[in-house]
Protein backbone atom coordinates (compact mmCIF):
# COMPACT_ATOMS: atom_id res chain seq x y z
CA UNK A 1 0.00 0.00 0.00
CA UNK A 2 1.18 3.53 -0.65
CA UNK A 3 1.89 5.45 2.59
CA UNK A 4 -1.31 7.47 2.23
CA UNK A 5 -4.36 7.62 0.04
CA UNK A 6 -7.48 9.75 -0.17
CA UNK A 7 -10.23 9.02 -2.68
CA UNK A 8 -11.89 12.36 -1.87
CA UNK A 9 -9.02 14.11 -3.64
CA UNK A 10 -9.54 11.93 -6.69
CA UNK A 11 -13.22 12.66 -7.11
CA UNK A 12 -14.49 9.22 -6.11
CA UNK A 13 -16.57 10.29 -3.12
CA UNK A 14 -19.88 12.16 -3.07
CA UNK A 15 -20.82 14.75 -0.47
CA UNK A 16 -21.49 13.64 3.10
CA UNK A 17 -25.12 12.57 3.51
CA UNK A 18 -27.39 12.49 6.55
CA UNK A 19 -29.34 9.37 7.45
CA UNK A 20 -31.52 11.37 9.84
CA UNK A 21 -33.34 9.61 12.66
CA UNK A 22 -33.12 6.22 10.97
CA UNK A 23 -30.74 3.29 11.40
CA UNK A 24 -29.97 3.14 7.69
CA UNK A 25 -26.18 3.42 7.90
CA UNK A 26 -25.90 0.08 6.07
CA UNK A 27 -27.55 1.60 2.98
CA UNK A 28 -25.27 4.65 3.02
CA UNK A 29 -22.19 2.48 3.43
CA UNK A 30 -23.17 0.35 0.44
CA UNK A 31 -24.18 3.21 -1.86
CA UNK A 32 -20.91 4.96 -0.99
CA UNK A 33 -19.01 1.89 -2.04
CA UNK A 34 -20.99 1.48 -5.27
CA UNK A 35 -20.53 5.19 -6.05
CA UNK A 36 -16.76 4.64 -5.80
CA UNK A 37 -16.78 1.43 -7.81
CA UNK A 38 -18.86 3.03 -10.55
CA UNK A 39 -16.57 6.04 -10.67
CA UNK A 40 -13.44 3.92 -10.91
CA UNK A 41 -14.84 1.57 -13.52
CA UNK A 42 -17.02 3.93 -15.54
CA UNK A 43 -15.50 7.33 -14.86
CA UNK A 44 -18.64 9.06 -13.59
CA UNK A 45 -19.40 9.96 -9.99
CA UNK A 46 -23.12 9.60 -9.33
CA UNK A 47 -24.85 10.10 -6.00
CA UNK A 48 -26.93 6.97 -5.53
CA UNK A 49 -30.21 6.21 -3.79
CA UNK A 50 -30.30 4.83 -0.26
CA UNK A 51 -34.09 5.14 -0.22
CA UNK A 52 -34.30 2.50 -2.94
CA UNK A 53 -32.56 0.09 -0.58
CA UNK A 54 -34.76 1.05 2.37
CA UNK A 55 -37.91 0.46 0.32
CA UNK A 56 -36.96 -2.43 -1.95
CA UNK A 57 -34.38 -4.55 -0.10
CA UNK A 58 -36.90 -6.78 1.65
CA UNK A 59 -34.26 -8.88 3.43
CA UNK A 60 -32.97 -5.90 5.40
CA UNK A 61 -35.03 -3.83 7.79
CA UNK A 62 -34.79 -0.26 6.54
CA UNK A 63 -34.45 2.08 9.55
CA UNK A 64 -34.16 -0.86 11.94
CA UNK A 65 -30.89 -1.92 10.38
CA UNK A 66 -29.46 -4.08 7.66
CA UNK A 67 -26.39 -5.87 6.39
CA UNK A 68 -24.23 -4.72 3.48
CA UNK A 69 -24.00 -8.32 2.21
CA UNK A 70 -27.79 -8.41 1.79
CA UNK A 71 -27.84 -4.98 0.19
CA UNK A 72 -25.39 -6.00 -2.56
CA UNK A 73 -27.62 -8.98 -3.35
CA UNK A 74 -30.68 -6.74 -3.43
CA UNK A 75 -29.01 -4.34 -5.86
CA UNK A 76 -28.11 -7.23 -8.16
CA UNK A 77 -31.61 -8.70 -8.02
CA UNK A 78 -33.36 -5.38 -8.47
CA UNK A 79 -31.22 -4.56 -11.48
CA UNK A 80 -29.25 -1.59 -10.19
CA UNK A 81 -29.51 1.64 -8.27
CA UNK A 82 -31.29 4.84 -9.17
CA UNK A 83 -29.68 8.17 -8.43
CA UNK A 84 -30.29 10.27 -5.32
CA UNK A 85 -32.13 12.83 -7.45
CA UNK A 86 -34.46 10.27 -9.00
CA UNK A 87 -35.22 8.32 -5.82
CA UNK A 88 -34.51 10.75 -3.00
CA UNK A 89 -33.93 9.96 0.64
CA UNK A 90 -36.92 10.28 3.00
CA UNK A 91 -35.51 8.70 6.16
CA UNK A 92 -38.42 6.30 6.62
CA UNK A 93 -39.58 3.26 4.72
CA UNK A 94 -42.06 3.66 1.87
CA UNK A 95 -43.52 1.44 -0.81
CA UNK A 96 -40.86 0.34 -3.29
CA UNK A 97 -41.00 2.51 -6.40
CA UNK A 98 -37.83 1.34 -8.11
CA UNK A 99 -37.93 1.29 -11.86
CA UNK A 100 -35.33 -0.74 -13.75
CA UNK A 101 -35.52 1.82 -16.55
CA UNK A 102 -34.41 4.51 -14.10
CA UNK A 103 -31.42 2.56 -12.79
CA UNK A 104 -28.18 4.36 -13.60
CA UNK A 105 -25.67 1.91 -12.18
CA UNK A 106 -25.45 -1.83 -11.73
CA UNK A 107 -23.16 -4.20 -9.92
CA UNK A 108 -22.09 -7.67 -10.98
CA UNK A 109 -20.99 -9.19 -7.72
CA UNK A 110 -19.75 -8.43 -4.24
CA UNK A 111 -16.73 -9.62 -2.29
CA UNK A 112 -15.56 -9.88 1.28
CA UNK A 113 -12.17 -8.31 1.95
CA UNK A 114 -9.23 -9.29 4.11
CA UNK A 115 -9.15 -8.59 7.84
CA UNK A 116 -5.50 -7.57 7.52
CA UNK A 117 -5.46 -3.77 7.65
CA UNK A 118 -2.34 -3.51 5.52
CA UNK A 119 -4.07 -5.55 2.82
CA UNK A 120 -7.20 -3.45 3.25
CA UNK A 121 -5.14 -0.31 2.68
CA UNK A 122 -3.59 -1.81 -0.44
CA UNK A 123 -7.01 -2.86 -1.71
CA UNK A 124 -8.46 0.59 -1.02
CA UNK A 125 -5.66 2.38 -2.84
CA UNK A 126 -6.02 0.18 -5.89
CA UNK A 127 -9.73 -0.57 -6.00
CA UNK A 128 -11.64 2.19 -4.23
CA UNK A 129 -13.58 3.05 -1.04
CA UNK A 130 -14.56 0.10 1.16
CA UNK A 131 -17.75 -0.62 3.06
CA UNK A 132 -16.93 -1.50 6.67
CA UNK A 133 -18.79 -1.84 9.94
CA UNK A 134 -17.50 -0.69 13.30
CA UNK A 135 -18.34 -0.44 16.95
CA UNK A 136 -19.60 3.13 17.31
CA UNK A 137 -18.33 3.58 20.87
CA UNK A 138 -17.71 7.26 21.59
CA UNK A 139 -18.98 8.47 18.24
CA UNK A 140 -21.97 10.17 19.86
CA UNK A 141 -19.53 12.75 21.24
CA UNK A 142 -16.74 12.67 18.67
CA UNK A 143 -15.65 16.09 17.40
CA UNK A 144 -12.30 15.70 15.66
CA UNK A 145 -8.92 13.99 15.76
CA UNK A 146 -7.94 10.34 15.56
CA UNK A 147 -10.06 8.15 17.81
CA UNK A 148 -8.36 5.22 19.46
CA UNK A 149 -10.59 3.89 22.21
CA UNK A 150 -9.35 1.18 24.52
CA UNK A 151 -10.13 -2.22 23.03
CA UNK A 152 -12.38 -3.45 25.89
CA UNK A 153 -14.52 -0.33 25.45
CA UNK A 154 -14.76 -0.68 21.68
CA UNK A 155 -14.97 -4.41 21.15
CA UNK A 156 -14.79 -5.83 17.62
CA UNK A 157 -17.58 -8.18 18.68
CA UNK A 158 -20.08 -5.39 19.21
CA UNK A 159 -20.34 -3.96 15.72
CA UNK A 160 -23.27 -1.58 15.34
CA UNK A 161 -22.55 0.99 12.63
CA UNK A 162 -21.73 0.73 8.92
CA UNK A 163 -19.52 3.38 7.31
CA UNK A 164 -17.17 3.87 4.35
CA UNK A 165 -13.37 3.85 4.31
CA UNK A 166 -12.29 6.50 1.81
CA UNK A 167 -8.63 6.91 2.66
CA UNK A 168 -5.82 6.46 5.10
CA UNK A 169 -2.60 8.12 6.17
CA UNK A 170 -0.70 9.38 9.19
CA UNK A 171 -1.11 12.48 11.31
CA UNK A 172 1.83 13.20 13.58
CA UNK A 173 2.94 9.60 13.07
CA UNK A 174 -0.45 8.25 14.14
CA UNK A 175 -1.89 6.01 11.42
CA UNK A 176 -5.55 6.59 10.65
CA UNK A 177 -8.44 5.56 8.47
CA UNK A 178 -10.50 8.39 6.98
CA UNK A 179 -14.08 7.29 7.34
CA UNK A 180 -17.09 8.79 5.63
CA UNK A 181 -20.03 8.74 8.01
CA UNK A 182 -23.70 9.39 7.25
CA UNK A 183 -24.62 11.74 10.09
CA UNK A 184 -24.35 14.96 8.10
CA UNK A 185 -21.45 17.35 7.65
CA UNK A 186 -22.24 19.04 10.99
CA UNK A 187 -20.85 16.03 12.85
CA UNK A 188 -17.17 15.09 13.29
CA UNK A 189 -14.62 16.57 10.89
CA UNK A 190 -17.11 17.83 8.30
CA UNK A 191 -18.90 14.52 8.48
CA UNK A 192 -15.78 12.36 8.62
CA UNK A 193 -14.49 10.18 11.42
CA UNK A 194 -10.80 9.41 11.86
CA UNK A 195 -10.00 6.10 13.51
CA UNK A 196 -6.69 4.54 14.47
CA UNK A 197 -5.36 2.20 11.77
CA UNK A 198 -3.43 -1.00 12.34
CA UNK A 199 -4.81 -2.12 15.66
CA UNK A 200 -8.20 -3.44 14.62
CA UNK A 201 -9.68 -0.48 16.47
CA UNK A 202 -13.43 -0.86 17.04
CA UNK A 203 -13.52 -3.85 14.68
CA UNK A 204 -12.87 -1.73 11.59
CA UNK A 205 -11.29 -4.72 9.85
CA UNK A 206 -13.95 -7.31 10.62
CA UNK A 207 -16.68 -6.65 8.03
CA UNK A 208 -14.97 -5.10 5.02
CA UNK A 209 -16.67 -5.64 1.69
CA UNK A 210 -17.17 -4.18 -1.75
CA UNK A 211 -19.39 -4.41 -4.75
CA UNK A 212 -17.83 -5.52 -8.04
CA UNK A 213 -18.55 -3.60 -11.22
CA UNK A 214 -17.26 -5.19 -14.40
Amino acid sequence: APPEWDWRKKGAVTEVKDQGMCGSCWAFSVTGNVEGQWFLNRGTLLSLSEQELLDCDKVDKACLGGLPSNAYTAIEKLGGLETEDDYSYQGHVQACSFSAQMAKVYINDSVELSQNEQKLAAWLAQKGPISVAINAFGMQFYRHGIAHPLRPLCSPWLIDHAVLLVGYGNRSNIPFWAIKNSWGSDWGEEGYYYLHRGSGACGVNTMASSAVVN
Partner: protein
Amino acid sequence: APVPFKPRAAGARAWEPSSPELLAPARFALDEYNRGRAAGSRAVLGTVRGRVRRTAQGSLYSLEATLEEPPCKDPLVCLLPVSKKTMLCTFEILNELGKHILLRRDCGPVDTKVTDNRNESVSSFLPQLNSDPLQQDFSMKITSVFKDFVATYNRTYESEEEAQWRLSVFARNMVRAQKIQALDRGTAQYGVTKFSDLTEEEFHTIYLNPLLREEPSKKMRLAKSLTDP
Protein backbone atom coordinates in the same frame (compact mmCIF):
# COMPACT_ATOMS: atom_id res chain seq x y z
CA ALA B 1 -8.54 -0.31 31.33
CA PRO B 2 -10.53 0.79 34.33
CA VAL B 3 -11.80 -2.18 36.21
CA PRO B 4 -14.04 -2.28 39.25
CA PHE B 5 -11.69 -2.03 42.13
CA LYS B 6 -11.59 -4.99 44.45
CA PRO B 7 -9.24 -4.83 47.39
CA ARG B 8 -7.12 -7.86 47.82
CA ALA B 9 -7.99 -10.23 50.63
CA ALA B 10 -7.14 -8.46 53.81
CA GLY B 11 -6.82 -11.54 55.96
CA ALA B 12 -8.71 -12.05 59.15
CA ARG B 13 -8.14 -8.59 60.49
CA ALA B 14 -10.28 -5.71 59.37
CA TRP B 15 -8.72 -2.59 57.94
CA GLU B 16 -7.86 -0.14 60.65
CA PRO B 17 -8.82 3.49 60.37
CA SER B 18 -6.11 5.92 59.55
CA SER B 19 -3.53 6.19 62.31
CA PRO B 20 -0.38 8.30 62.59
CA GLU B 21 1.74 5.19 62.03
CA LEU B 22 0.24 4.77 58.54
CA LEU B 23 0.98 8.30 57.42
CA ALA B 24 4.68 7.83 56.66
CA PRO B 25 4.20 4.76 54.44
CA ALA B 26 1.15 6.43 52.86
CA ARG B 27 3.20 9.50 51.96
CA PHE B 28 5.91 7.24 50.59
CA ALA B 29 3.29 5.41 48.47
CA LEU B 30 1.98 8.74 47.21
CA ASP B 31 5.49 9.86 46.23
CA GLU B 32 5.96 6.61 44.33
CA TYR B 33 2.59 7.10 42.62
CA ASN B 34 3.54 10.65 41.59
CA ARG B 35 7.06 9.77 40.50
CA GLY B 36 7.91 11.54 37.25
CA ARG B 37 4.92 13.85 37.32
CA ALA B 38 5.28 17.60 37.01
CA ALA B 39 4.13 19.87 39.81
CA GLY B 40 0.46 20.65 39.28
CA SER B 41 -0.29 17.26 37.82
CA ARG B 42 0.35 15.25 40.95
CA ALA B 43 -2.34 13.36 42.78
CA VAL B 44 -3.03 14.16 46.40
CA LEU B 45 -3.78 11.80 49.21
CA GLY B 46 -7.40 11.34 50.23
CA THR B 47 -8.37 8.82 52.85
CA VAL B 48 -6.01 6.17 54.15
CA ARG B 49 -6.61 3.04 56.12
CA GLY B 50 -4.54 -0.03 56.61
CA ARG B 51 -2.84 -2.45 58.88
CA VAL B 52 0.67 -3.32 59.88
CA ARG B 53 2.35 -6.66 60.45
CA ARG B 54 5.63 -6.99 62.25
CA THR B 55 7.99 -9.40 60.55
CA ALA B 56 11.56 -10.43 60.96
CA GLN B 57 12.51 -8.06 58.16
CA GLY B 58 10.65 -5.10 59.58
CA SER B 59 7.10 -3.79 59.33
CA LEU B 60 4.83 -4.71 56.45
CA TYR B 61 2.13 -2.13 55.75
CA SER B 62 -0.98 -2.97 53.76
CA LEU B 63 -2.69 0.28 52.83
CA GLU B 64 -5.90 1.16 51.10
CA ALA B 65 -5.92 4.80 50.02
CA THR B 66 -7.89 7.12 47.82
CA LEU B 67 -5.85 9.43 45.62
CA GLU B 68 -7.38 12.48 44.01
CA GLU B 69 -6.10 13.18 40.53
CA PRO B 70 -5.92 16.88 39.63
CA PRO B 71 -8.90 18.21 37.71
CA CYS B 72 -8.90 18.31 33.93
CA LYS B 73 -7.69 21.65 32.52
CA ASP B 74 -8.83 21.52 28.91
CA PRO B 75 -11.68 24.06 28.73
CA LEU B 76 -13.26 22.32 25.74
CA VAL B 77 -13.79 19.05 27.47
CA CYS B 78 -13.49 19.82 31.15
CA LEU B 79 -16.56 21.78 32.01
CA LEU B 80 -17.21 19.88 35.14
CA PRO B 81 -15.82 20.34 38.59
CA VAL B 82 -17.01 16.76 39.20
CA SER B 83 -14.40 15.69 36.70
CA LYS B 84 -11.87 15.22 39.47
CA LYS B 85 -10.84 11.59 39.23
CA THR B 86 -10.49 9.51 42.35
CA MET B 87 -8.26 6.47 42.31
CA LEU B 88 -8.58 3.73 44.86
CA CYS B 89 -5.26 2.06 45.52
CA THR B 90 -3.84 -0.70 47.61
CA PHE B 91 -0.19 -0.61 48.51
CA GLU B 92 2.07 -3.07 50.26
CA ILE B 93 5.08 -1.38 51.75
CA LEU B 94 7.90 -2.88 53.71
CA ASN B 95 9.73 -0.74 56.20
CA GLU B 96 13.17 -2.21 56.75
CA LEU B 97 15.64 -0.44 58.98
CA GLY B 98 13.73 2.82 58.53
CA LYS B 99 13.69 2.55 54.73
CA HIS B 100 10.43 2.08 52.81
CA ILE B 101 10.21 -0.38 49.92
CA LEU B 102 7.13 -0.57 47.70
CA LEU B 103 6.26 -4.23 47.18
CA ARG B 104 2.98 -3.92 45.37
CA ARG B 105 0.70 -1.23 43.99
CA ASP B 106 -2.76 -1.80 42.60
CA CYS B 107 -4.87 1.19 41.54
CA GLY B 108 -8.14 1.65 39.73
CA PRO B 109 -10.61 4.49 39.29
CA VAL B 110 -13.44 4.62 41.75
CA ASP B 111 -16.63 3.72 39.90
CA THR B 112 -18.52 6.98 39.44
CA LYS B 113 -20.91 5.70 36.79
CA VAL B 114 -23.91 7.96 36.36
CA THR B 115 -27.11 6.12 35.65
CA ASP B 116 -29.82 7.36 33.38
CA ASN B 117 -32.99 8.18 35.22
CA ARG B 118 -35.77 10.28 33.82
CA ASN B 119 -36.61 11.62 37.25
CA GLU B 120 -33.17 13.11 37.75
CA SER B 121 -32.71 16.79 37.30
CA VAL B 122 -29.44 18.66 37.18
CA SER B 123 -29.80 19.46 40.85
CA SER B 124 -30.40 15.84 41.80
CA PHE B 125 -27.51 14.85 39.58
CA LEU B 126 -25.37 17.29 41.53
CA PRO B 127 -26.89 17.21 44.98
CA GLN B 128 -24.68 19.92 46.44
CA LEU B 129 -25.58 22.33 43.69
CA ASN B 130 -27.07 24.94 45.93
CA SER B 131 -24.43 24.90 48.61
CA ASP B 132 -21.17 24.47 46.78
CA PRO B 133 -19.96 27.51 44.81
CA LEU B 134 -18.07 25.22 42.43
CA GLN B 135 -21.25 23.32 41.67
CA GLN B 136 -23.19 26.54 41.22
CA ASP B 137 -20.51 27.63 38.77
CA PHE B 138 -20.82 24.32 36.96
CA SER B 139 -24.59 24.63 36.81
CA MET B 140 -24.31 28.05 35.22
CA LYS B 141 -21.68 26.88 32.77
CA ILE B 142 -23.57 23.79 31.70
CA THR B 143 -26.79 25.75 31.31
CA SER B 144 -24.97 28.27 29.15
CA VAL B 145 -23.39 25.54 27.02
CA PHE B 146 -26.78 23.85 26.70
CA LYS B 147 -28.33 27.11 25.48
CA ASP B 148 -25.61 27.36 22.84
CA PHE B 149 -26.30 23.76 21.87
CA VAL B 150 -30.05 24.43 21.53
CA ALA B 151 -29.36 27.48 19.36
CA THR B 152 -26.69 25.80 17.24
CA TYR B 153 -28.74 22.73 16.45
CA ASN B 154 -32.19 24.40 16.42
CA ARG B 155 -33.56 22.20 19.17
CA THR B 156 -37.13 22.72 20.29
CA TYR B 157 -38.68 20.85 23.17
CA GLU B 158 -42.36 20.30 23.78
CA SER B 159 -42.44 21.67 27.31
CA GLU B 160 -40.32 23.24 30.01
CA GLU B 161 -40.26 19.85 31.70
CA GLU B 162 -38.87 18.24 28.55
CA ALA B 163 -36.26 20.99 28.27
CA GLN B 164 -35.19 20.41 31.89
CA TRP B 165 -34.97 16.68 31.26
CA ARG B 166 -32.85 17.27 28.16
CA LEU B 167 -30.62 19.61 30.14
CA SER B 168 -30.01 16.86 32.68
CA VAL B 169 -29.27 14.36 29.88
CA PHE B 170 -26.91 16.90 28.34
CA ALA B 171 -25.09 17.37 31.66
CA ARG B 172 -24.69 13.62 32.14
CA ASN B 173 -23.47 13.29 28.57
CA MET B 174 -20.76 15.87 29.20
CA VAL B 175 -19.50 13.67 32.01
CA ARG B 176 -19.63 10.63 29.69
CA ALA B 177 -17.78 12.51 26.95
CA GLN B 178 -15.14 13.49 29.43
CA LYS B 179 -14.67 9.90 30.55
CA ILE B 180 -14.39 8.75 26.93
CA GLN B 181 -11.87 11.52 26.37
CA ALA B 182 -9.81 10.38 29.34
CA LEU B 183 -9.69 6.82 28.04
CA ASP B 184 -8.89 7.57 24.39
CA ARG B 185 -5.34 6.77 23.31
CA GLY B 186 -5.47 8.79 20.11
CA THR B 187 -5.81 12.50 19.47
CA ALA B 188 -9.61 12.59 19.30
CA GLN B 189 -11.55 15.29 21.08
CA TYR B 190 -14.95 14.48 22.49
CA GLY B 191 -17.54 16.95 23.66
CA VAL B 192 -20.71 18.65 22.50
CA THR B 193 -22.20 17.26 19.29
CA LYS B 194 -25.68 17.38 17.80
CA PHE B 195 -26.40 14.14 19.67
CA SER B 196 -25.55 15.53 23.11
CA ASP B 197 -29.16 15.74 24.33
CA LEU B 198 -29.86 12.06 23.65
CA THR B 199 -29.50 9.29 26.18
CA GLU B 200 -27.20 6.45 25.22
CA GLU B 201 -30.23 4.22 24.70
CA GLU B 202 -31.97 6.76 22.45
CA PHE B 203 -28.83 7.21 20.38
CA HIS B 204 -28.39 3.47 19.91
CA THR B 205 -32.03 2.94 19.04
CA ILE B 206 -32.31 5.80 16.58
CA TYR B 207 -28.97 5.97 14.83
CA LEU B 208 -27.24 2.61 15.10
CA ASN B 209 -27.76 -0.76 13.50
CA PRO B 210 -28.13 -3.69 15.89
CA LEU B 211 -28.51 -6.18 13.03
CA LEU B 212 -24.80 -5.91 12.33
CA ARG B 213 -24.05 -7.82 15.51
CA GLU B 214 -27.24 -9.81 15.87
CA GLU B 215 -27.62 -11.42 12.46
CA PRO B 216 -25.01 -13.63 10.84
CA SER B 217 -23.75 -12.03 7.69
CA LYS B 218 -24.42 -13.81 4.39
CA LYS B 219 -21.23 -15.55 3.35
CA MET B 220 -19.61 -13.57 0.57
CA ARG B 221 -16.96 -14.61 -1.89
CA LEU B 222 -13.48 -13.61 -0.73
CA ALA B 223 -11.78 -11.00 -2.88
CA LYS B 224 -8.77 -12.15 -4.85
CA SER B 225 -5.44 -11.01 -3.48
CA LEU B 226 -3.97 -8.01 -5.20
CA THR B 227 -1.07 -8.76 -7.47
CA ASP B 228 1.96 -6.58 -7.75
CA PRO B 229 1.28 -4.14 -10.63
